[in-house]
């Protein structure tokens, strides 16, 4: 699930794809901002706190430090894990372990599924922006880009872009995974030097009474 954070980070990076489509100019501006942000992010490490709740009960809380590995991929180092202890007794423990494995498998699949909503390629950004109408920006310069059926039929994705910086302010997703409705709300922050990152991410799976809260913080420039 931690990779979901990194996945959302890909909102800041995408390869180039050129096509003559409506609003391609705006799409290219956003893509360029994401690429610039992705390069900046490579200079940083940060902490990531994630909390999984089921039926309103916290099942697992962990804190990782995220750095960048030699392969250019984010590496997570566990700082603290406060997962609930497994029950005593062989059978009960075995059942709990299986449930935990199933949950991890589910969350891994969910993460992979939701990764598509980070629009990791320029083409996906262009497709979203070109297939929707963009309403008038609000007085604070927020540009709302809303698309439907972006990944699966009847899903909706709404990106709020800061017009002057072209960086993401907010992202909300409503989609369906394995027949269950899934909602994601990500709120972004921007550091003084312009680094844009998802500060809070909340994933809800109402049908399973699951809630995943992710908080990214303490961004440190490794070059300083």
């Amino acid at each position, binding site marked *: 699930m931690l990779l979901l954070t990194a996945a959302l980070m890909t909102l800041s990076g995408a390869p180039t794809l050129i096509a003559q489509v*409506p*609003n*391609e*100019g*705006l*799409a*290219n*501006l956003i893509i360029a901002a994401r690429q610039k942000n992705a390069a900046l992010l490579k200079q940083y490490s940060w902490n990531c706190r994630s909390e999984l709740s089921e039926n309103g009960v916290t099942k697992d809380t962990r804190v990782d430090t995220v750095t960048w590995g030699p392969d250019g991929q984010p590496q997570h180092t566990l700082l603290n894990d406060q997962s609930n202890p497994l029950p005593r007794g062989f059978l009960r423990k075995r059942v709990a372990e299986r449930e935990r494995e199933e949950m991890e498998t589910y969350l891994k699949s969910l993460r992979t599924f939701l990764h598509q909503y980070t629009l990791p390629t320029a083409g996906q950004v262009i497709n979203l922006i070109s297939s929707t*109408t*963009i*309403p*008038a*920006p*609000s*007085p*604070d*310069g927020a*540009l709302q880009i809303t698309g439907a059926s972006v990944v699966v039929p009847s899903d909706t994705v709404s990106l709020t872009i800061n*017009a*002057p910086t*072209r960086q993401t302010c907010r992202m909300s997703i409503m989609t369906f995974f394995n027949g269950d409705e899934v909602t994601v709300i990500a709120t972004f922050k921007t550091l003084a030097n312009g680094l844009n990152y998802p500060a809070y991410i909340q994933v809800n799976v109402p049908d399973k009474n699951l809630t995943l809260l992710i908080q990214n913080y303490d961004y440190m420039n490794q070059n300083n």
Partner: protein
Amino acid sequence: MIPRFSNRLVAAPAIGFLFLCACLGPLRSTAQTPPPGQKLDPLTMKWPRFFAANGYEFSVYHPQVAKWPGNQIQGRFAIAVRPAGTSNETYGVVFFTARTEIDKMSRLVTLEEFQVTKMDFPTQRAMQQVYQPIIQAELPQAAKTIPLDHLEAVFAISAEVAKAKIQQVDNTPPRIIYTTQPSLLVLVDGAPILKPLVGSYERVVNTRSILLLNTNLLASSYYLYAASNWYSAPSIEGPWSVNLAPPGDINPALEAALATKQVDPAYPASPLAAPLVVYVSTVPTELLQTTGQANMLSYENTDLLYISNTDNAIFYYLDDGNYYLLISGRWFKSNSLYGPWSFVATGTLPSDFKKIPPGGPKANALVSVPGTPMAQEAVIANSIPQTATIKRAEAKLTVEYVGGPSFVAIPGTSLFYAANTVTPVVMVNANTYYACQDGVWFVSSSSLGPWAVATTVPAVIYTIPTTCPIHYVTYAYVYGCTPQVVYVGYTPGYMGTVVVAGGVVVYGTGYCYPPVVVGTTYVSYPPTYGYGASMAVGATVGFAIGFAAGASSSCWYEPHYGCYSYSYHYTSYSYMHCNVNSCNYYTHYGTAVSSTYSHGYNPYTGTSYSAHSASAYNPYTGNYAAASHGSAYNPYTGAQAAGSKGVEGNAYTGNSASASRGVVGNANTGNKVAWNNGNVYTDKNGNVNKYNPSTSSYDRYGSSGWQSSTRSSSDLDRESWGQSTGSSRFSSWGSSGGGGWSLILSGKRNR
């Protein structure tokens, strides 16, 4: 390619014989006037043109303009000459002056009083005395009629272009209303002035709308009749709502209002699907309207978005998070479509606006972006007059005052103007009065007349400031006269344009002039806002200005002052989508306008400017749309409205002008192969140059023929651009049927 002449031309006789013949005068000319009704090949308006006489064949290349003050033009032609039937051409340059008769409706310029002032054939100077009489006799015919676009385009790139007169204007933002619903803006010229109408009804007289107040205490309310509906509101500010059950006695009030002939019922072009949202404003106001919620689209390679579902020019600049709105040539910005808006001062418009694709949506905004070629061209076009030759004995003027003449001082001058007439009348002193009617100045020793066509205009009149309601008359000129005629003209400023700091043309002075109401008669003055004034410089049509007030609601309101209020009957006419750069108010003078000139002839149709068909130009889309007689065209949306507005033809020639007045062209052109494809240019020093594609540079014609030139070619490149632009623009104009909005504005309107 070896240049050649037509094989229809005679073979070259001996030089000596020709010299004799030339001294005696030209023996023949190939310049011809087409027979009536004959369609003229558009190519005849192209360059080079040809004539032959006395055994010599001449090829005349595209003119280049040095100066063009008023109606006097100075320029030069590159000319090639050779003995007939040979290929031994010699190049030279011919300088000329002429008086220009400019008809912006047909976009043709006729050169009158053509004088060859100098010529130089560097390799055959001894022969110049042979060529000179031929050229003086033939060139005025061969080059008599020139598409305005040919001259305008090359003039635009001329370094000799006179600096436009910069005017001080008021850029205070008007009230700007943004709506997403079909709406109607009703302008009241200041606080409502109520006059008794009939029964318990009073009429708001300082508006063209039918706006009534029922003073009956039991039904006290304002009532507006527009677009075939009654609307009512408790106060003039609103809120207004459709009233499906107006008072039973309101119909006589409506009839009484219509009977005043001072009101506009704002009939819709077609029945409205739903009542409009009504805004009544007593201050200068502009209505912004999107079809539903605003839909933003972006341009490639800019940081600009624009609103696609509106007729207005509204942009969003991503970098500063502001909307930029273009109204009447002025830019205003706000971080919200609902305002507040502030004026964007000269030099502070983001440079990205220069990157708006010239062929893309909202490209006409480029006219109002300082520094763009379109803005520059607009300034040039704004300086070129519509001219006419007025018969002094026939042009008449009667000034009707509302009550007795009432004169008001013009600030900053010793002048006074009459405040209670739609005809601008200026009192210079107690015994000298000038009046400007439809672009013609008249003079009288009395404010009541009789009026005679003025042969001069006092310079002080041209100091009337923009703060004065009749500033627009300072753009009407008298260029000269004979005992029989007066040469007059007006530039687009007469119709409301003003050149402001930054080198752009705007519409309106921005000043809000107080209305004059005498009795129940309302005299309105030039408004800057409220009519959707917009400008365009199209790739095909050139500079254009139009109004589209109420476009989205299909209801029309129009400027109504001086030049927009034809005649003296206070009758409203439609100028809502005119091209003020190609209209001709002189049509109002009928036969008093001399029509002996070749303008007035459409070389593409072989007739006069068609009075029964027109093509209207959409400044927003850049498209033309054919409009049949009596139809109105919405320049914003491209939609045609029903035929409530008529057109008339050009009074230069009348509705059935004879084509025998036609363009002087060269009927042989079609049989010729143009030398050098017309790419021969002269520079201001009289050197003849041609483009050499093999070296991508210009060769200069000297004493030993064509030689490679080492000089910078940038000026020649500009000449080349100007010529090609002018040619293509005129071709487009012609192929579109000519006319543009001009035909909608070519004469008085029929309701």
